[in-house]
């Protein structure tokens, strides 16, 4: 057991990140379980503790009497230094057990900029960073989360990946492990990995080898063993309503990013925004029923004591029974003074009415995501929002007393021209003017946040070259020049981080040495602007002789083999091609949630269907 002394904890910021002991944390006797599973997010406690997927897996695994799931997050650099000085290995928050003593170490990979933290945590855990160097006693290092739709840049560091919804797979993985262990671990590590390869949704990177041609173009990922399937399709819960759910999440002592109950209304979103990977990765839409949500809300409220509940989903306002649900919950929890929030507002007045009813805090403002500055470009990306929609929505908000609006945009989208960039400034100005018109005075605050578009695998834009740093820089300055009203606050992302994200998002296994070198040089917490050091990365690319532009700035041809095609969310490439063509024609594709099938192929491939309360055939 790892012991933390006052001289250590007294010297680091937010020591409560490292001391555990939270309500609903599950502590089991190691001698009484057959499998110990460490669940992690390679980020700091407050971020990791906010991840819904990990909360669900923690509970699903701990429901098994034969398994203990415990948590571990990335120590902040001050704690890391203190731990290394004292030779304290990475440990779990439940029983303060060294992570290297676990059977599994699972990482939720939420986005590419967390990769160096994975390496750093493995090193802190005293687990060999490269999977090939791990000996018999080492934990199996598992990856999951949205990054699995191209994990090739980190494939060398993991023993296996779970493709799709973890609740659907982890039980089988643990069963296979317990059986293998019970038989005396036949054929060692590799013996277990071969068994795991037989499970649907499990990808074992060591059973494949990438092939490149003389020009360095990726040719194929060749299976090296009969157990290695050419394509691993995602697993998912066909009946989300009946699936095991989170009922008693761990309640932290210190404030975390999402410090409230998360009531998950549904999985999936099929609005079909063409830049959005989540829209493909979590298809099809599967709703929970109102009675089930009411039951879960009650269980979580009683088990946690939280006074705030978020109605979570990719686009919560699309829930088919949202109004009756909100009314029911507000009645159920009136005496408990529960407050509710709707995190993803749709750009329409229905959403404003609901937000008003929920009494969302006025001063923080409402957030909308028009994503692009002109109608033409919004049509290209299939964001079915018009300027009239936006004006009606913000107008309704202003009339109901809101004084602040946040607008999210992207720059660097396919077909984008300077007119589209200037359109962002123009739209923001219109919002300011609308406030003045409605209220008869100035006094609104409009925040314009513009991120740099990162093309992602399994989207219609997966072939598209990312803008160069110079281009992002020019566009950011252009926009700044066109924002003149002082009521508008303009925020933009660091294009150097987005570039790196773009490289990793569509990279292959040749990036593993780059990652390794960047980490050795000191790269960690790359997603934190105050921690990101581009020089570590630039020197790593140089040292490894890898040109980052090959991965992010190159236009791919449609017949080029893609290094991520073996871990699939089930979408047909033909659908993505058609969506690309429609994007070029600025033609829209409707949502299949309540309308006709748009032919993405996911339901047919995976044998599932859309579950929505308002669907005609539902």
């Amino acid at each position: 057991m790892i012991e933390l002394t006052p001289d250590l904890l007294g010297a680091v910021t937010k020591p409560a990140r490292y001391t555990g002991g939270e309500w609903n944390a599950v502590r089991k006797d190691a001698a009484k379980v057959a499998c110990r599973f460490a669940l992690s997010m390679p980020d700091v406690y407050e971020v990791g503790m906010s991840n819904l997927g990990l909360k669900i897996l923690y509970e699903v695994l701990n429901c098994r009497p034969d398994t203990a799931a415990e948590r571990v997050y990335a120590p902040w650099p001050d704690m890391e230094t203190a731990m290394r000085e004292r030779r304290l290995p990475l440990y779990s928050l439940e029983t303060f057990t060294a992570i290297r003593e676990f059977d599994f170490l699972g990482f939720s990979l939420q986005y590419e900029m967390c990769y160096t933290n994975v390496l750093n945590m493995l090193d802190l855990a005293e687990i060999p960073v490269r999977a090939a160097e791990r000996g018999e006693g080492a934990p199996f290092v598992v990856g999951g989360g949205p990054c699995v739709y191209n994990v090739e840049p980190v494939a060398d560091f993991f023993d296996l990946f779970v493709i799709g919804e973890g609740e659907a797979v982890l039980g089988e993985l643990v069963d296979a492990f317990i059986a293998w262990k019970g038989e005396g671990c036949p054929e060692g590590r590799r013996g277990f990995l071969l068994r795991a390869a037989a499970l649907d949704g499990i990808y074992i990177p060591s059973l494949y080898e990438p092939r490149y041609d003389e020009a360095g173009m990726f040719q194929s990922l060749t299976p090296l063993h009969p157990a290695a399937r050419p394509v691993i399709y995602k697993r998912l819960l066909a009946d989300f309503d009946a699936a095991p759910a989170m009922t008693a999440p761990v309640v932290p002592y210190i404030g975390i990013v999402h410090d409230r109950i998360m009531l998950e209304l549904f999985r999936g979103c099929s609005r079909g925004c063409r830049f959005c990977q989540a829209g493909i990765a979590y298809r099809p839409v599967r709703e929970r029923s109102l009675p089930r949500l009411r039951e879960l809300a009650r269980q979580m409220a009683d088990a946690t004591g939280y006074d705030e509940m978020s109605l979570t989903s990719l686009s919560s306002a699309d829930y088919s029974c949202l109004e009756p649900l909100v009314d029911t919950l507000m009645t159920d929890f009136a005496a408990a003074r529960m407050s509710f929030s709707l995190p993803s507002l749709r750009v329409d007045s229905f959403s404003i009415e609901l937000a008003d009813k929920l009494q969302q805090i006025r001063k923080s403002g409402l957030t909308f995501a028009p994503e692009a500055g002109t109608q033409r470009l919004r049509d290209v990306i299939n964001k079915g929002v018009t300027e009239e929609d936006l004006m009606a929505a913000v107008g309704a908000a202003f009339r109901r007393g809101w004084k602040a609006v946040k607008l999210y945009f992207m720059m660097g989208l396919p077909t984008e021209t300077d007119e589209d960039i200037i359109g962002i400034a123009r739209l923001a100005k219109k919002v300011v003017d609308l406030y003045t018109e409605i209220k008869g005075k100035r006094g609104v605050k409009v925040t314009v946040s513009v991120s740099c578009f990162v093309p992602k695998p399994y989207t219609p834009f997966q072939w598209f070259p990312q803008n160069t740093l110079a281009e992002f820089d020019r566009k950011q300055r252009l926009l700044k020049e066109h924002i003149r009203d002082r009521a508008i606050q303009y925020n933009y992302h660091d294009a150097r981080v987005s570039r790196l994200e773009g490289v990793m998002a569509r990279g292959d296994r040749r990036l593993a040495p780059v990652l390794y070198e960047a980490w050795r040089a000191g790269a960690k917490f790359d997603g934190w602007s105050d921690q990101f050091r581009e020089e570590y990365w630039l020197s790593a690319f140089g040292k490894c002789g890898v040109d980052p532009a090959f991965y992010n700035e190159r236009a791919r041809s449609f017949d080029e083999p893609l290094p991520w095609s073996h871990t699939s969310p089930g979408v047909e490439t033909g659908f993505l091609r058609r969506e690309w063509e429609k994007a070029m024609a600025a033609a829209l594709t409707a949502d299949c949630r309540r309308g006709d099938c748009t032919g993405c192929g996911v339901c047919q491939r995976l044998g599932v269907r859309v579950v929505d309360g308002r669907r005609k055939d539902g």
Partner: protein
Amino acid sequence: MAEMKLSFIYRVAVTKGEALRYISHLDYAGAIQRAIRRAGLPAAYSEGFNPHMKISFASALAVGVTSDVEYFDLEMTEPLPPLDVAKRLKAALPPGIELLELRRLRKRKGTLMAEADEAGYTVDLPLTGTAEQARTAVAAFNAAAECVFHRATPKKTRDIEVKQYVAEDVALETDGDAARLTMKIRITPTGSVKPGEVLSLLVDRFGFPGDGKAAGLCRRSLTGRGKSLLEIDD
């Protein structure tokens, strides 16, 4: 009061254990409020847009300090039997917060914060010098007429004369390499001093031979006019 809205006040004594040593007072208060909600107790809330539970604490405890006894007053909308309230609360408190005692107050009084006027602390730390050096340092501190601590927070800095808040001489016990300091600190409407601040003065100004970073601080008592805050009602 013109409007007689019924409310029932319970005074509760709890601990802040080792597991919660590094939790701030605000987070500690939040943990207790969530426990009250889990216990399903009919807590009273303030009116308005952003309702708050009607709960008040005696005296904020500094981060890094545990406590043998903390107090809070909880206002409820129903007069439940104290034993019943205690039973439900006990089951809902997180590890590190133990329920010591609970009683219903007969009448509404001033705030708990105004009632508490003295806190007792112990500070356990390893000695880096001799017991004799330690005794000399403590004696010099006790003999000093004035002693100013320079308190720097991220927002402001100010100088505090510490001795006005030290109610009786700091006591020292040693056992081999281990030392224990016992101190009584006054809590006044115009301010107080933290035990960690007294400790750092002892080390930095009076040459106390101890490793302040390795110190374990614990509040042992919190009293008003020499009596426990649970007795004060009688």
